[in-house]
């Protein structure tokens, strides 16, 4: 076991554990969206899980604990980066919580509260995508303007299926999740898997009603 000091709290953890995971397990909350336990190469794409180690700010999902270290999760530099990242995410997010199935269990709402960032950030244009609902999956609807592009669904689909049925498509502001070429024959396991639906931190993937046929 390795000891580390996080915000002056001493925690013990197995060597080789991802720092973010170590903190979360010891009830030290670090905002995160794209992290999935057990992934060999974390994307570190949400830019929210920053911590400060010896004065250096790093995403904690990319750090493995291999010896004693001093970690701070609440420094001005860390918070500033996290708040900027969240504000940018919210600027491409359709904030219509009342009509969103993820309302009150949404990771974005939770993180916004934690970081004290308003859901409608000032000073940034809101860029929304067209169309607002994509229905190229037999029974899942995708809402591009709710999606935070964390990629958890894509990575899970890839690990579970081997041949991913969902992918990122396009680039930059136009990036969306796509089920291109997907149909019932090409993904017989979709019906019972539903990992993507469960993994979505927001309400971007929704079972279409009626769910079957």
């Amino acid at each position, binding site marked *: 076991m390795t000891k580390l000091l996080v915000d002056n709290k001493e925690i013990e953890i197995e060597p080789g554990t991802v720092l973010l995971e170590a903190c979360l397990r010891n009830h030290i909350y670090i905002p995160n969206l794209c992290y999935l336990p057990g992934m060999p190469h974390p994307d570190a794409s949400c830019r929210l899980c920053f911590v400060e180690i010896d004065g250096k700010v790093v995403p904690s999902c990319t750090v493995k604990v291999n010896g004693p270290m001093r970690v701070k999760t609440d420094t001005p530099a860390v918070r500033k980066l996290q708040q900027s990242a969240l504000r940018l995410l919210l600027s491409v997010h359709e904030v219509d919580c009342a009509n969103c199935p993820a309302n009150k269990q949404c990771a974005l709402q939770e993180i916004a509260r934690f970081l004290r960032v308003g859901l409608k950030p000032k000073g940034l244009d809101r860029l929304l995508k067209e169309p607002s609902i994509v229905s190229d999956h037999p029974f899942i609807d995708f809402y591009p303007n709710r999606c935070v592009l964390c990629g958890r669904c894509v990575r899970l689909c890839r690990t579970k299926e081997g041949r991913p049925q969902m992918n*990122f498509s*396009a680039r930059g502001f136009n990036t969306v999740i796509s089920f*291109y*070429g997907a149909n019932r024959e090409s993904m017989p396991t979709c019906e019972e898997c539903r990992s993507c639906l469960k993994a979505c931190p927001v309400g971007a993937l929704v079972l279409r009603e009626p769910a079957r046929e």
Partner: protein
Amino acid sequence: MHEISAEEQQQIAVCIGAFAPKRGSLVPILQRIQDEFAYLSGEAMRKVAAHLGITPGEVYSVATFYNQFRFHPPGKHAIKVCLGTACHVRGGEVILENFQRKLGIREGQTTEDKEFSIDRVACVGCCALAPVALLGDKVYGHMAPSKVEGLILGIHLEKERQEREKAKHESNNS
């Protein structure tokens, strides 16, 4: 969906067959197919996926990442709107929007009658004329919304004139 003829199927197979069935061949194959057909059809992407042992979704994912690939056959009159730095500053975006609204399609798409397609390009090399649009190979500088109307109207009139002449010709012959 555009119909793919048996001959085109054959052509696609030839393009794909020239490359080893490994992931690294994906972009070169797509480039070859686009060279041949000027766009990537759904059928072509499915065939590429089968050759490489990946899903059509993965092919689509890679293809949409690059600006060089298009997914609709170019129209008879290919419109290219420049959005390079100079044209961007002089309102190229407005010109693009005007073309899109006038023709009822988005960039990268082709009208139903296959007459027009719209694409955005980054710098045509005549920034002094910004904002610039190309119709086929012909460059139109100092574009303005009224010129967009004029260009499209011009093409429609020209088409009508040709049709009239053709009809006249036929009636003369008969």
